């Protein structure tokens, strides 16, 4: 008997920064090679941070 694979159930509440916590400092180059400090660039604005798998696959 073969077990068909199952989609693992992930507890996402513990994945990444928690609700209520400050988003960590992130300093990374963008697509133009410019170094971006997320919180500096954000200034006093709200922000949407979209984490995705890859631009390649």
């Amino acid at each position: 008997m073969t077990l068909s694979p199952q989609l693992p159930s992930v507890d996402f509440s513990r994945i990444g920064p928690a609700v209520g916590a400050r988003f960590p400092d992130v300093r990374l180059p963008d697509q133009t090679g410019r170094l971006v400090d997320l919180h500096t660039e954000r200034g006093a604005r709200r922000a949407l941070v979209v984490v995705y798998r890859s631009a390649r696959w």
Partner: protein
Amino acid sequence: MELQDAWQALEKRSVAVFALSYDSVEVLAAFAERRGITYPLLSDEGSHTIRAAGLLNEEHLVEQHAFYGIQTRDEQRGVAYPGTFVLDEAGVVTAKYFEQSYRVRPTARIFEEFATGVARPDPSPDAAQASRQGLEVRAWTDAPTYRPYQQVRLHVEMRLAPETHVFASPVPDGYTALSFEVDPLDGLTIGTPELPTPQPFSIAGLQDRFMVYEDTVRTTIPLLFTSNLGSTGITLRVHAQICTPLVCFPPNATRVDVTLNGLDLIRD
């Protein structure tokens, strides 16, 4: 990416947008060029930030791939769990959003709502409509197109004529409760709509108290296509028994058809 479509609206509302992946600057440069992306695509080559932020998918990647019949390649190690974080003015996370299936992608509209906190959209002017016995049903989706594994929301607004009501579940014996049903299709996963809270209702002289809906009822039915079916008709049936204070009509279904155009899954 869908995000570019939402970007202008977000920018107007003073919401900064960042995307983060483990791709190299070169890969991101080509991607941004190809898709016309103007917001920063942050490059976490080596996945140090992804790891430090607790976003590294080490545990579940192979299992998730196996579910879809995919072999995990070496260069895919270091990938993050895809998710969306909403930050307030102080940089504090006010909401985060993940899907069990990494294939499920939010639409531009959902990104916008996340960041702006505006919940349910108003009916679009070209919403499909049907009416019967003074009941009007309008149905529309966030966009006229869908892609496989993109979240598609079918919004429904039902308006009842003044002095009429429909029953909510559980119903008195012999009556029919309001329900929303989408006809099944191969390749379409249909979610359960969340109905608003009904109102108590009693008839003078009768002891029984019922739960009913009056005026306007709005709901959203989550839909997910697992493949591109091309141009597709979605059939919504609103089952309801309309009553006035004096009489209940026989139960009936109001049918509304919404057509959606299928697009291919974006793989890059």
